[in-house]
Every structure is written in C-alpha cells, then in structure tokens.
C-alpha cells in the first residue's frame, strides 16, 4: 500500500466517521412539534436542543430507551439489560389515541400484558414537562406553553362575561 493510498483510506475513514456523527445528530431533533391538542391549542415547538443542554441524562425523559437507562426498581426487573431502541420518540410508545377501541382491546385481550396502563401521548407530554417545570421553575400555566386557538376560546366560552366570584361566596 503506497503512502498515497494510505492517505486516501485515512481521509475516507475520517469522512465516514464525520458522516456518522452527522447522521446521529440529524437523528436527534433540534425541535419537536407537540401537536396532540391542535384543535384548541397551538402546537408546542419543543426546543429539544435546549433541553438536551440542561445536562440531564436522556433517560430523564426517555426512560430505558436511550441514555444510561432507568434506575427505577420497578422497571429494571425487566429492563436492566434493555438496549437503546431504534425509535426513541415519545409517540413510538405513547399512542395519541389511547382510548381507541383497538387500544382498549389490546389491554382486554392480553392477560399477560404488564403495561396495561401506559399513558397516552398527551398525558406523557404533560406529566414529563409539567413535573420537571415545577421543579426547575419552568412555565406551568396552560397558555405559557400553548396559546389557545379561536376554537379553543369558543370551547372555554370566552364570550361569556360573568365576573370572577369573590372569595368564599355563599348562596
């Protein structure tokens, strides 16, 4: 192997490694659109890149599917040896239509299923986000994260003008 060939191989290898890390970075989204309630609330453009910089381990949100894995005793009895999965997005496990007939039948028909109570996508978002925001003084009000749509205003009856009740009003 000539020196030139060796150099070419080396460059090729470096390019491949660089490409690999580009692919990995591309796999991890900078932004995720959380759109489970878009009828009444705008979707939340979740800044994934910013949240990864907070220094928390990936498994703080992704449980056992990526990062260092879970330390929850209930989970490690089965998932201690679980390897990172191909798709770690929330929606790959937490379905949006949790209460569809199909999902209810999965729970009903499989007597050996342990995860009979896996939260739907909307709950998974709210539990993960709000509980952490409470600890870290992040926004926790409904419209701090997602502004209401005109249809949402109509649902919550912004058109009625009754004034708030003074404290401890009795009838």
């Amino acid at each position, binding site marked *: 192997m000539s020196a030139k060939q060796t150099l070419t191989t080396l460059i090729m290898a470096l390019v491949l490694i660089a490409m690999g890390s580009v692919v990995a970075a591309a796999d991890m989204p900078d932004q995720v659109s959380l759109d489970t309630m878009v009828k009444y609330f705008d979707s939340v453009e979740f800044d994934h890149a910013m949240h990864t910089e907070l220094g928390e381990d990936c498994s703080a949100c992704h449980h056992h599917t990526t990062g260092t894995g879970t330390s929850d005793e209930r989970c490690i009895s089965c998932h201690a040896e679980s390897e990172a999965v191909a798709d770690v997005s929330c929606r790959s496990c937490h379905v949006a239509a949790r209460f569809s007939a199909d999902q209810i039948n999965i729970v009903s028909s499989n007597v050996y299923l342990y995860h009979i*109570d896996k939260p739907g996508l909307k709950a998974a978002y709210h539990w993960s986000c709000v509980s952490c925001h409470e600890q870290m003084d992040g926004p926790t009000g409904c419209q701090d994260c997602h502004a209401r749509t005109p249809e949402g205003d109509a649902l919550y009856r912004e058109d009625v003008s*009754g004034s708030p009740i003074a404290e401890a009003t009795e009838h």
Partner: protein
Amino acid sequence: MSGISRRRFLAASVAGCAATTLAGPRKVLASATFTGYPDGMGVLVDLTRCVGCRSCEAACNKEQKLPAPDRPFDDMSVFDETFHGGKQKRRPDENAYTVVNRYNPENAAPVYRKVQCNHCNEPACLSSCFVNAYTKTEEGAVVYNSKVCVGCRTCMVACPFHVPAYSYSSALDPVIKKCIFCYDTRLKKGLPPACVDICPQEALTFGKRKDLIKIGHQRIETHPGRYVDHLYGEKELGGTSWMYLAPVAFDQVGFDPNPGNEPIISHVKDFLSTVPMVLAIWPAMFTGFHLLAKKQKGDDDHEHDAEKQHGDEGGEQ
C-alpha cells in the same frame, strides 16, 4: 255472598299472603346480584392527577349542547363558590352535567374532584322510576328517555350520589337532566366521552370496567404512598362504572365514605315485594269484608230505608 264462604275466603287470603311473601324476596334477590354487563365500559378517575383545569366541564358543555355558563370555563374562582352555609360545593345541574370541585384536605395539597353520574351497575334512579324512563345500557351508561319522564323527581331522592338534576327553569316541560356518558354521540360508537377525550392529564382513564379495576389496583401497588388503598366504586352500592382513586381518605374529598356495598334496591326490595301483594290481595280481601258485612246486616236494610225516607220527609217540611 253465596259463591264463597267466610272460611274459604279467609283461607285463600292467608295462602295468598304467604305465597307472595315467600316468593317475593327470592325473585328480587336475583336482580340485586347483577354486577354489570361483562363488557361494560367505565372511567377510572385519578384524583392525584387532576389539576382542576375545568376542561372536562367545557367539553361536556359543548358535546351536550348545554346553555352558556355564567363564567368562562377557565375562571378558577368558581372553586370558592359554596352553598347552604358553606357546606355544599357545586353540584351538577340542568346546565352542567359535570362540575369540578376543589378540596383542601388537612396537611395535603389541594385535591380536585370531578362530579358527574357514576353510572351504577344497579342504579337507584332506575329502580325508583315508575315510568321506566331509565335504562342501563350494555355499554355501561345509565341513560333516560325524557319523552316518558313525568318529572316526578323520585330518582333525585333515590340517587345516593345526588346526581340527577331537574330543569326547574322549564315551565312547560320540566324533566330530569344528568350525565349520560355521552351515550348517543360517543359511547355507542366505541368512543370515550368528551370529558375523557379532552383531559390533558389523563386523570380520566376510559376502558372496560373489569380492566379498570385491574388498572386501579396496579396503580395503588406500584405507587406506594401515593393513594389510599381503596378503589371507590368497585364495590360501593353494588359497583359503579365510574371509579375513583384518591390521595387522601375519601371523606376528605366529599365522598360518602361508607355507603355500603349493597345496591339501593336491596334496601327497598322487601317493601317493593309487598306491593303486588297489596295490589292483588287487598281488593279481594276488602271486597270480601264488605260482602260479609253487607250480608250480616241484610235484615236491617229495610229499617234503614224507612229511616232514610223519614229523614227526607223531615227535610221537606
């Protein structure tokens, strides 16, 4: 009094009474052991998850096409509203089939509780309705036919959860109003009710009642310290389709802590079983008494007639 002797009449009455008393309770017992349709649906309400956003109230209002509320559904001041000297919190009424209330248990964070019909396995409203307006559907909902409702309000008295409300505002056609589990628009089609659909916290879990019982107990087991070890509605009053998990004792969040496990019909079945007896036997018995009495005084009849004639004549003078 020629066809039946006094002795035969009394013997038949006693036999009739005995037959009704013995046969009655056995029949009613069978109806009081109904534990719900096998694939009936339900909702598990987790009070530890509810944040009191009132979205369920808004969704219910829209789905059931209810009148506009007094205040917007994001007005949280309604939690301060009390009635009857501060003891009574908000209750469902003709304009709102569900309401959320806030409780402040001792040494614990505020707890929010959604109130609506619990869709009993053996509903007291249904048992008490004499026009048969109520139906427990195989999907689990307790629905009612307002076309046959006569507005007697017996179901309001019968309901152990004080749920059915009355359209007092309607002068011409007042009827009972309550949560129907979104039966017509959703449940019948296999969809969750509107309140469950909108809940951001999944404080409401929709599923087959038998699965929800498993889920409820699994939550208690896997989160030690989070819940009191009780699934309210699993057994209470013969079981309800809507069941509850709470972080504090149930009486601290407005529940009747011990309503008993017997459905309401069990408390009235002894009385109800005597109703057919009264309706069937009393007319015969009292007709018998009447005829006997009439026969006994038969000889005096002419005397009475004579007296009456005298009286009439006296009146004319």
